[in-house]
């Protein structure tokens, strides 16, 4: 989203970032688990998540470009400090858990590469992430990691090489009821949606638009990058689901450890596939971890009226930098203590889905408030799509999480 580049380069980078940045610990784990357990049947959850995410990202960019406010800044302005504080508290808790899962993903990639347990890597990963945030600019974080994340497209290539039955894949894109293990089916479905529509992306995207100096002239770029980037990104996640459906499902292999996912790509690419997976997991989770740590700092800084910008030196916005400095080691702690990264990931994704209505619905109110968005407000289709998907995901998550925790199937 950085300014000062030719427009075509901004568009290309935005799209590449959307594709490369889509797959992270949550979307990878949930897509693979869905493919292994239910073959192509949960493809629809990915589509729903991607449509909603593209719509939300477009709205967040449009909101910032027109109103010159970030979403959180406007939520405090429009609904008052108490409401903002409640929202920020819930968001920070969810961000904390998701950040722990992303740091766990990088640590696990290092375990796969070296043989040393992920527990030993967790704090080091937190320190390297902090260094990248401390030293790197916003565009380095957004574009650099997003473009490197294109390595995750290996899943899409693998899916094409495996020649799946495309008719069955297409049927899976239409919602259907489970034939067995209903609690697990719905838990996996909401985890996929939660992994796709992370509310922190709305915070990150609108903050990025302000950091990049967006205005009305950026609306076209915004629409393109959100629509095309996120759609292709979701296709990569669909690739992971297809590969798991083709390799794990026929063997009845359940995915209960991240390490098992490393068996997918070698089936297609041999030894290179193993290293492609290690690189995909490390880069995708590292990028998402940086975005999450920054989003936490944006959440606190914008709500409390601090000076905030990733493009300023840390000394210039010391309180903003303090937030991610404290959060990163705290998030590494559960992983260093040996909490299973896959369990943390799946739980945090379902919790994200449960918290969606709380964060997305007030944002929809803002998107229809002429004081902020003037004549660029939402149409009825955008409002309806996002409201229905968000409410559905929230309600199903609230029902499915306790059932899954109680061991229901």
């Amino acid at each position, binding site marked *: 989203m950085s300014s000062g580049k030719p427009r075509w380069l901004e568009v290309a980078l935005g799209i590449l970032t959307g594709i490369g940045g889509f797959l992270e610990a949550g979307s990878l784990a949930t897509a693979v688990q869905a493919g292994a357990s239910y073959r192509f049947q949960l493809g629809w959850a990915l589509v729903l998540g991607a449509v909603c995410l593209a719509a939300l990202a477009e709205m967040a960019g449009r909101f910032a470009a027109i109103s010159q406010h970030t979403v959180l800044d406007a939520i405090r302005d429009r609904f008052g400090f108490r409401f903002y504080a409640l929202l920020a508290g819930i968001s920070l808790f969810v961000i904390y858990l998701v950040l722990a899962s992303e740091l766990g993903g990088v640590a696990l990639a290092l375990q796969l590469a070296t043989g040393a347990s992920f527990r030993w890597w967790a704090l080091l990963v937190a320190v390297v992430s902090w260094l990248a945030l401390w030293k790197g600019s916003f565009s380095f974080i957004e574009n650099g990691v997003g473009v490197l994340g294109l390595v995750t497209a290996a899943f899409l290539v693998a899916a094409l090489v495996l020649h799946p039955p495309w008719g069955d894949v297409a049927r899976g894109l239409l919602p259907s009821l489970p034939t067995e293990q209903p609690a697990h089916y719905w838990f996996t479905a909401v985890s996929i949606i939660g992994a796709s529509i992370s509310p922190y992306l709305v915070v990150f995207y609108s903050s990025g638009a302000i950091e990049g100096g967006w205005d009305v002239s950026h609306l076209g770029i915004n629409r393109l990058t959100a629509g095309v980037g996120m759609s292709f990104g979701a296709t990569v996640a669909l690739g992971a689901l297809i590969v798991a459906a083709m390799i794990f499902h026929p063997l009845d292999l*359940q995915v209960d450890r991240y390490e098992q996912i490393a068996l997918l790509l070698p089936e297609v690419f*041999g030894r290179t596939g193993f290293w492609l997976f290690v690189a995909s997991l490390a880069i995708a989770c590292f990028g998402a971890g940086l975005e999450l740590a920054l989003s936490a700092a944006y959440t606190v800084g914008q709500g409390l009226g601090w000076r905030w910008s990733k493009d300023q030196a840390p000394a210039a916005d010391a309180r903003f930098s303090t937030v991610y400095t404290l959060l990163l080691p705290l998030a590494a702690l559960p992983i260093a203590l040996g909490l299973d990264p896959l369990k943390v990931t799946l739980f945090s994704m379902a919790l994200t889905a449960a918290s969606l209505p709380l964060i997305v619905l007030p944002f929809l109110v803002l998107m229809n408030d002429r004081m902020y968005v003037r004549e660029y407000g939402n149409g009825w289709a955008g409002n309806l799509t996002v409201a229905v998907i968000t409410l559905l995901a929230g309600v199903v998550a609230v029902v499915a999480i306790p059932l899954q925790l109680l061991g229901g199937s």
Partner: protein
Amino acid sequence: MSARWLWAGVAAGLAACGPSPPQQLGEQLGEQLERIASATRTTELTARQWGDGSLPDGYAIQMSRIAGQSLRRIARRPIWQHAPADIRDTALDHAAASAALADRLGQAARSGDRAAATGLASRSARLAAATRRLRERVSPR
């Protein structure tokens, strides 16, 4: 008070709609057998891919350790005390045999003996298939 009655009513309603206790036991045993079969399949896939050079030795060692630990954990679960004796004995035999195969894979990976991989993969495949058949007997789907 009324909330407590309402909650008790909901709980009783849910219990009435759910499976009967023997069905529940069958489902729980079936789930554990599925986990045994899945861990065995993991060993099979790891052995096959490691045998053809697609995986580094270190990863095969990690996966064999994970599969072995997971199978031993399943075998220690209290649910087996409630299972019919013949099912329990067969299931625990399968878990032990599968854990032994995982250990053998770990040893082979440590010594770089890739020639052993094909045999380990095919034995794991046969064992996983047998465990699946037992699972269908316990709790047909």
